[in-house]
């Protein structure tokens, strides 16, 4: 099937029941999107499909529209320039192990696209499906506010 991944058209050889996560990781070599649980309980695999945050570990190839636009962590920002959300993550020294952070960042970018001025409750609603075991939630919250300020 045909997809548009990070702005580039790609032809994917995958069975219909293969989740998008493994198309990205194993077929396209885009390993920035992480495998954490396989059942949409941790959010590490969050990507954007046609602009919406989706759990790629349970989104099957057959459920994707032909030509669907997929954005992964590698496709944020422009070449050599980080997205404002990624910059905010650096400024707040958010990551520890970092494994969940691609998912956290993708969820945040989608949140800020829909709601440019989220309050703490909005952040809780948008990000509570993204698990972090190192405990970076306080810094994520600060980084979301910081990025929102920059994007206005």
């Amino acid at each position, binding site marked *: 099937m045909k997809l548009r991944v990070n702005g580039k058209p790609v032809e994917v050889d995958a069975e219909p029941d293969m989740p998008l996560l493994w198309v990205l990781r194993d077929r396209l070599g*885009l*390993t920035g999107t992480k*495998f954490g649980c396989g059942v949409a*309980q941790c959010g590490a695999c969050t990507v954007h499909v046609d602009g919406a945050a989706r759990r790629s570990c349970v989104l099957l190839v057959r459920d994707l529209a032909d030509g669907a636009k997929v954005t992964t962590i590698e496709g944020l920002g422009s070449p050599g320039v980080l997205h404002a959300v990624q910059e905010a*993550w650096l400024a707040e020294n958010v990551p520890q192990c970092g494994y969940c952070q691609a998912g956290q960042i993708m969820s945040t970018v989608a949140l800020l696209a829909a709601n440019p001025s989220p309050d703490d409750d909005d952040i809780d609603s948008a990000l*509570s499906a993204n698990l972090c*075991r190192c*405990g970076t*939630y306080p810094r994520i919250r600060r980084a979301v506010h910081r990025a929102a300020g920059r994007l206005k």
Partner: protein
Amino acid sequence: MISRRALLKLGAAAGGAFVVGCAFGRTGGTVWREYKRTGTFQPNAWIRITPDDRVIFTLDRVEMGQGTTTSHAAMVAEELGVDPRVMEIEAAEASRDYDNPDKQIRIQITGGSTSTRGAWRPLREAGAVAREMLRAGAAWTWGVSIGDCRAVGDGSIAHAKSKRVLRYGALAGAAAAQDVPAVELKGPAQWAIIGRSIDRLDIRPKVDGRGVYGMDVQLPGMLTAVIVRPPAAGATLVRMDAASARARAGVVAVEACAGGVAVVARGYWEARTGADALAAEWTTPANAADTDDLRASYRRLLSRDAERVVRDDGDARAQPDTLDAFYELPYLAHATMEPQNATAWLHDGRCEVWAPTQAPGIARWRVADALGLDLEDVQIHTTLIGGGFGRRGLVDYCVDAADVARRVGGGRPVKVVFSREDDLARDWYRPMAMSRLRGSVAGGRVTGWRHHVVTQSILADEGGDFVGALLPNGAPRAVRRLASASAPRLFARGAMPDSTSIEGAVELPYAIPNLRVELTPVETPVPVGFWRSVGHSHNAFVTEGFLDELLHAAGKDAYLGRRELLAANARHLGVLDLAATKAGWTTSTPPPGVGRGIAVHASFESYCAMVIEASVDGARVRVRRAVVAFDCGRVVNPGLVAAQGESAVIFGLSAALKQQITHRAGRVQETNFGSYKALRMFECPIIETYTVASDAEPSGIGEPGVPPVAPALCGAIFAATGKRIRRLPVEAELAT
């Protein structure tokens, strides 16, 4: 090329001060020979400087989020005189050069909150030795006195009188020709990097998707394997029908292996669905673990005399029991965000392994042993690590990968990947622990304390890994195997001490005249291991919780009562006062319905006190605020300490509120994050971290914040509701 001898003669003639010295087993001669061979200046195992001015630092305590990249680079850079942000930092491969300097674990492993305290002297010395050789090299080059050559701090040496400057890269050859000097380290007043919150050096690749975790390793021709495991520990394969698994598109092999049955395929999804299609029959082990049965047996042991007395002050048994309580904590999984995995490639009679591991030193010998290779023929490449918490001190995933690569790889690299379900079902769990506490209160004072711990020895499970890695690399394979295989029995029988069962209980710091601590070790079929703060993780909940009970019985405040009992322990007192002050313990009242709890605990040579504010609504606990106070000696990077305060609170609350691993007929009942829950964003309290100013040697910060969390939380719940929590996790306890 000019000879080293000639260089030295010229340098001496030029007035260079060459102190004959030796650092880390290297002499000027070996550094020079290494320079001639590689073209780089390598004064020791951690620093390389190339003629094109790259400064490369080899990080030998793995980065798993706790911040070693940044703290360790700061220690080296401070003395070396470079900006840590321009150093290239690479993960150390397996080598005895990188054995942990901590006397208790002299193998290449990251754990026990040893990284900062272990590196404090050697890494600064490594930087200083390099700097002094660069200064001497510059003095020779210019024909001036070394005393006039100054390390600027930006990777160059300057000669002020002649206004000349040379970059370190340009000095690589001249520096390599110098003798390795004895060095003096900078004093605190001279520090420009240590003690400051420099930004983390490891996070750019963690926000742009380029970082390579073990899971992300890609090699030409690589296959991916999923291992179908026996459903219960100790079960073995009776028969399998692999036809439908093999029929799955992309599956290239299905074969019994040491860990179970390996389904090897083009990618993870093909291997996983192939594994799901496998029909396998397993034996039922006779001694399958059952949590209810284990709990009942622990409880029976607590009603009998203990097997060992580990501390006995005064005569605790002669005191009347004011309180008699049972405390209980469950098995816990580590649940690192990155499930366990490793990639092995057998080629040319060697094996290379890429793995997110805390223990390259253990991985190397375990893989060599599994494959029948010499240690020198196995190399371990450490990747980025998606969370450790002690789980990755085990190397089972490395052995799995090597084993499957040998059986079915056919010279192709094989990556073994655990699903989340595999990861929770095949862990080495924090041991279940049960304690009986008896205490005496007389005349408003705590006069007696008896603590009997029943738990499982961690070293009886994992000691063999350590013993095997401790032996020199050249030890015969049979010796290593025998020593390793004998260790577990020795630990289980107590012939070798396993302090992990009683740490945090035996060194109770309170001034209680009659104090007895006892241990009854148990053996179970459940594999157990090191879990962030290890024995302290269960013993602090028990000791601090029961102390709260005794202070309450004595009519004392939880904070002020602790103060009285800690009068002789300045560092405990320092963190306790700091946490109480910052939380407003004596100066403010929490809002209606909110309770405050306090706990203090020392572990891994650091001290931590915590105040937690929480309210309770049915079985739901809302934690509002956590105030953390650390005394970890000198602080290398305050920002990293704050991050570990936040990390400890969230990790500790996840466990205290939500987590338990339970077994039924040997099977772990918790399968994924739906049943093994962790704290989420909406549950995260406000967290404040403070440190006591100290000029003591630095100590660790990765673990010491965890032990006080559960008792401070339960103190808050008691203050809010009057209900004592003596069994974790809290949410399950409140629901009963």
